[in-house]
C-alpha cells in the first residue's frame, strides 16, 4: 500500500538539501520500525517519491513524500512514531493512504503552491506602499519577468501563473498562490522581485523570509492540497 506523508521543514533544517532530506526520511522510517516495501535485487531500496524540491533556505509547512509499505498502523500512531524520530525542525503533520495508480505520484501531481512572505524581523509591511502596490501590480495586463530554466533565460509573462497575491489584514504577511511543478512553475522570489521592481524598491534593503505553506494539485479553480487526496487510516 502507498502512504503520503506531510511534514514541515523549518529553522536550520532549511539548509538541508532535498537529497539529504530523502536520506533522512529513509533512516527515520527504519528507526520508527515502519514496515516499508523494498525493491528486489542485491541492493534493496525503499520506494519513495518526493514532491517538488524546496529551494534551499526556504522553510515549509507543506512538504510531501509518498512511500510504499507492506502494512501500516493507524494514521495517528504512524504520526506519533515518526515524530519520535524527527529532529526539532521537522514535524510530521499527516499520514494518509493513497491509491496506488501511477497518476497519483506526488512528484507529478503538483500544479500549484501557496507561499507566505514575511519580514525577517516579524514587522509590518508599509501599508501605503504594499496594500495598494500589490493591487496595482496585479492590475497590469502582463507581468514580464526573466524566467530562468535549466537551459536558458526567457522574458515571459508570469501573470497567468500568479493565481492570487495579496497582503494580510495585519500587514505582516504577503500571500502568494502560484503555479508550481511541471507546468508554469513560478519561483516565489521571482514574483517578489518583480513586485519590488515594479514598486521601484530596492529588494536588497528588505530582509524577507519566505515559507511554502502548501502544495496543490489539479486545475487552479479546483485546487486540492496533497494531503486531501487519500484517506486517513483508523
Amino acid at each position, binding site marked *: 500500500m502507498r502512504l503520503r506523508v506531510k511534514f514541515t521543514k523549518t529553522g*536550520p533544517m532549511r539548509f538541508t*538539501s532535498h537529497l539529504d532530506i530523502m536520506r533522512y526520511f529513509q533512516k527515520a522510517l527504519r528507526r520508527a520500525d515502519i514496515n516499508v516495501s523494498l525493491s528486489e535485487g542485491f541492493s534493496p531500496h525503499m520506494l519513495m517519491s518526493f514532491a517538488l524540491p524546496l529551494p534551499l533556505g526556504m522553510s515549509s509547512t507543506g512538504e510531501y513524500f509518498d512511500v510504499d509499505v507492506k502494512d501500516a498502523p493507524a494514521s495517528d500512531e504512524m504520526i506519533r512514531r515518526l515524530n519520535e524520530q524527527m529532529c526539532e525542525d521537522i514535524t510530521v503533520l499527516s499520514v494518509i493512504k493513497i491509491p496506488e495508480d501511477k497518476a497519483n505520484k506526488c512528484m507529478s501531481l503538483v500544479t500549484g503552491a501557496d507561499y507566505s512572505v514575511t519580514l525577517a524581523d516579524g514587522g509590518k509591511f508599509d501599508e501605503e506602499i504594499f496594500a495598494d502596490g500589490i493591487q496595482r501590480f496585479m492590475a497590469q495586463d502582463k507581468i514580464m519577468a526573466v524566467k530562468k530554466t535549466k537551459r536558458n533565460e526567457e522574458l515571459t509573462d508570469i501573470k497567468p501563473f500568479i493565481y492570487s497575491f495579496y497582503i494580510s489584514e495585519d500587514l505582516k504577511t504577503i500571500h502568494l498562490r502560484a503555479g508550481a511543478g511541471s507546468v508554469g512553475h513560478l519561483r516565489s522570489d521571482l514574483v517578489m522581485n518583480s513586485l519590488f521592481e515594479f514598486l521601484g524598491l530596492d529588494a536588497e534593503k528588505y530582509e524577507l523570509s519566505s515559507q511554502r505553506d502548501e502544495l496543490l494539485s489539479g486545475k487552479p479553480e479546483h485546487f486540492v492540497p496533497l494531503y486531501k487526496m487519500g484517506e486517513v487510516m483508523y
Partner: protein
Amino acid sequence: MRKLALPDDVLLKVEKPGRYTGNEINSVMKSKDEVDIRFAFAFPDTYEVGMSNLGVQILYDMFNSFEGVWCERVYSPWIDLDKIMREKNIPLFACESQDPVKCFDFLGISLQYEMCYTNVLQILDLSGIPLYAKYRSEDDPIVIGGGSCAYNPEPLASFFDLFYIGEGEISYKELFETYREAKKAGLSRMEFLKKAANIDGIYAPAFYEPEYNEDGTLKAFGPVTEDVPATVRKVIVSDFKNAPYPKKPVIPYVQAVMDRMVLEIQRGCIRGCRFCQAGYIYRPLRERSLDEMKEMVRELIYNTGYDEISLNSLSSSDYEKLPELLDYLIGICNEKGINISLPSLRIDAFSLDVMNKIQDVKKSSLTFAPEAGSQRMRDVINKNLSEESILGGALEAFKGGWNKVKLYFMLGLPGETDEDVKEISHLCQKIAETYYEIPKEERNGKVAITASTSFFVPKPFTAFQWAPMNKEDEFLEKARMLKNEIRSEVNQRSMSYRYHDAEVSVLEGVFARGDRKLDKLIEAAYRNGALFDSWTDTFNSDAWKKAFEETGIDPYFYTARERSEDELFPWDFIDIGVTKKFLLKEWKKSQEAVTTMNCREGCSGCGARCFGGGICFAPES
C-alpha cells in the same frame, strides 16, 4: 530554536550549508549552565570526512556520558566559507551550540594523517587562538591532539598544549578531573599542564626540549623540569571484549564519506607487515566478543536507521569468529534489507562464498593488496601473501563470475630493484592468464585488472623507520618503468595502471619522521595559502615550495637520508610497547628477506605484552 552562527545569506552562498548547522540526529545538546567542562572536538578536514571517523564518534559519546562535560564537534570550514569567515571576522564555532570555539575549556584535534597539518592551523587561526602554544593566555582553550599522528607529535609540538598518546577511552576522565581541581585551586595554565603531563598517555611538549647535533639529527631529548616523566607510554583498552561503543552515533544529514553503520570488531593486528604503522602502534590485537557484537548490531540498526553496515578492523579476515559473525549479520540484514560491505577481507574460498551471498557479483570488483610484486619483496615487507594464493583466489573468483580485479602495490620499498618493480606487471599478466584459462563459456565477458601504486612513505614505529625514502624523480621513474612494462604485456588491453602523486608523498614523508624544527615550515605553508592538502583540487604545490625556500628546510634530510641504527629519533620518548630493539631486529631481517610469524602462529616477543591483554595472552593454539 537554536541561533545559527552564520547568517542566512552566508549559508546560502556556501557549498553544502548543512555542514555547519548541526542538530543532527543523536547529536547531544546540554545546557551551558549544567556543565563545567566544554570540549570542542575538531576534525581538521571536511565535515563529510570527519563525520566518518569512528574514533570521533566513540569519544564524543564517551565525553557526553560524563557528568558535567559537554563535547561538541568542529570541522574545517571548506575554502568557500573559510574565505567569508576571514573577510567578515566570523569566529569558528562548534556545530551543537554554535558558540565560538574560543570560549571552550578544551579544543581537541583529531590527527589522522600528516596532510591535515595546515588545517590544524586553520582551526586555531579561525578560532582566534594563538597558533603557538607559548603565546596562549589563561583564557584560551587547552589545545590537545590525539590520533595516529600523535605517535610522532614533534612536528606539531609548538602548536599544542597537550598530546594524548593512545586510545581515548583510558585517560580523559582523569584529565577532566585534574582540570576541575586545577580550576578550583586557581592554578595557572602552566601548573595545570604540568599536572596533566603526569597522567598516563599525556604528553605536554612545553616541558620537553630537543637538542640537536650539528648535522641536524637529534642529540638528546627529554624533560626540562624534574616533575614530568621522561617517557610517555601509550594507553590502550586492554580488556576490549566488552569495551563500550557508541550506541547512538551521530547521523549526519549531509552524506558522509562513510554513510553506514560501523562495527568495530577488533583493534590491532596480528600480522606485523614491516611498513605498516597501524600494525605496530595498535598492538596487541584485541577482539570484541561475538555476543557483544550481536547486541551492537541490533542496537545500531534500531538507533541509526542506516541501510548499510560495514566491519571495521585492520584485517577482518583474522577475526577468529568471523564465520559466526557473518552468519548472524547476513541473517539479520536480509530480514531488514540492509547491505553488508566487507572491506579488508582476504580473497579465498570462504570470503568469496560470503561475498556471493551479499553482493551483486557482476558489479563488484575484488581487491587484493599484495603491496609488492615479487615474492622476495613480499618477504622483505613480511606480507604473508604468496603468488599461489593470489592466483588461486583469482581463479576461484573468476569461476564464480567476477571479472574485475583491483590490486594495490607500493613503489619505493626498501631494497627494491627494477626487477621487483616489473614483477608487479608480471603478476597482473599472470592474473589475466588465469582468467583466460577458464573455458570461454564460463567467462563473464572480458577481464579488467586495475593496478594502483602508492609511493612508500617510511613511518615512525615501524621496521622501516630507518629506511631512506625515494625522491620524487626516483618514484616517477619507477612508475614510468612499470607503466612501460604493463604496456608490453600480452594482455595489456585488460590492464590499467594508476599511481598516486609523488609530491604529496614526499611531504607526508617529511612530517611522518619529522622533528620540532618543522613548525616553521607548516606555518609558512599555511601563511602561503596551503589548506586541505590531502585534496587533489586544493593541494597548493607552490605554497609548499615557497615554504621550503623561506625556511631553508631540506625535505631530503627527513626523507631520503638513511638513518644509522643508533640514531635517536624524535619519537623515541614515546613507548608503544613494541620495543625499538624488536623493530631493529625486524629491519635487519627485512634486509635478508626473512619473514616473521604472526601473533597467532606464535609470539615474537615484540614487547606489547606489557599491556596485559589481547592476543599475547591467548592460549597457545
